[in-house]
């Protein structure tokens, strides 16, 4: 009876894995092949959602939740805002037939993929065959918090500094571009200095 229940659970996990894995791959291909970046960003949401399901199957609950919050909630929304700001800039991805550059890129990506898959296939029956047993709290928020603030405290602090530096860099990139507009700058300086330079 117990083995029957375990095998039924295994079949269920297989079904969820096949659905999530294939939607992940299909939306990944869609992101790369859409000509409108708006549709690509929308397809990325599907990719991230199905990846979160795969993370749940790998008992990484906190990472799955963070994935949905950080990526689908913040990164994709920022992408959509910027795409709406710069306007739809279409690009026909495969226009003009395959150039040597496209051909080389496809060959390089295909070679990389083949290499990785062959290595995984060679190890699939060996060291990758038996996974370790983990407890029920593996990957839970409490466990992640405990590990993050004890063993990996340095990682935590460095991550916060990286995020701070990136935020400052984003603000500087977004705000100081007017300085390079010579006409407006000269006009603004003249307006500012006029009362100071006038002796009367």
């Amino acid at each position: 009876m117990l083995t029957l229940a375990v095998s039924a659970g295994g079949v269920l996990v297989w079904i969820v894995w096949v659905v999530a894995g294939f939607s992940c791959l299909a939306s990944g291909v869609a992101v790369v092949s859409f000509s409108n970046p708006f549709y690509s960003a929308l397809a990325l949401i599907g990719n991230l959602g199905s990846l979160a399901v795969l993370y749940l199957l790998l008992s990484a609950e906190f990472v799955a939740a963070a994935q949905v919050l950080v990526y689908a909630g913040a990164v994709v929304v920022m992408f959509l805002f910027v795409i709406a700001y710069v306007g739809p800039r279409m690009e026909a991805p495969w226009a003009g037939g395959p150039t040597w550059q496209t051909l080389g890129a496809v060959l390089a990506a295909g070679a990389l993929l083949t290499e990785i898959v062959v290595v995984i296939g060679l190890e699939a029956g060996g060291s990758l065959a038996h996974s370790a047993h983990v407890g029920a709290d593996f990957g839970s928020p409490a466990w992640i918090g405990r590990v993050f603030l004890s063993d990996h405290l340095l990682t935590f602090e460095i991550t916060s500094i990286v995020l701070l530096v990136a935020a400052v860099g984003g603000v500087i990139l977004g705000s100081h571009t007017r300085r390079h507009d010579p006409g407006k700058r000269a006009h603004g300086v003249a307006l500012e200095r006029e009362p100071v330079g006038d002796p009367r």
Partner: protein
Amino acid sequence: MLGPGVAWYLGVAAFLFGTGALGVLVRRNVLIVLLSLEIMLNGGNLALISFSRHAGNGAGQIFALAVMAVAASEVCVGLGLVVALHRRRLALDVDRLSELRG
């Protein structure tokens, strides 16, 4: 571990990485290159979490969270660059942005 073994997850991760690399190499729109970079990072994250589950060691999940923070920083700076390019009326085409080429 119920269901598929860790090699299947690693296959999905490899395919995602290859797809993202193809997008970065082939596409010319800056925004789609950034989106393809996200796909590459997600493939790397899936491999990290698969190996973390395989070995029963949580350091992979911590590393995946750090990669997520780095991806958010990269998007912040990358989109700042896109907005700066747009304000200077430059084309969002990586082949035409060749001012710094030596």
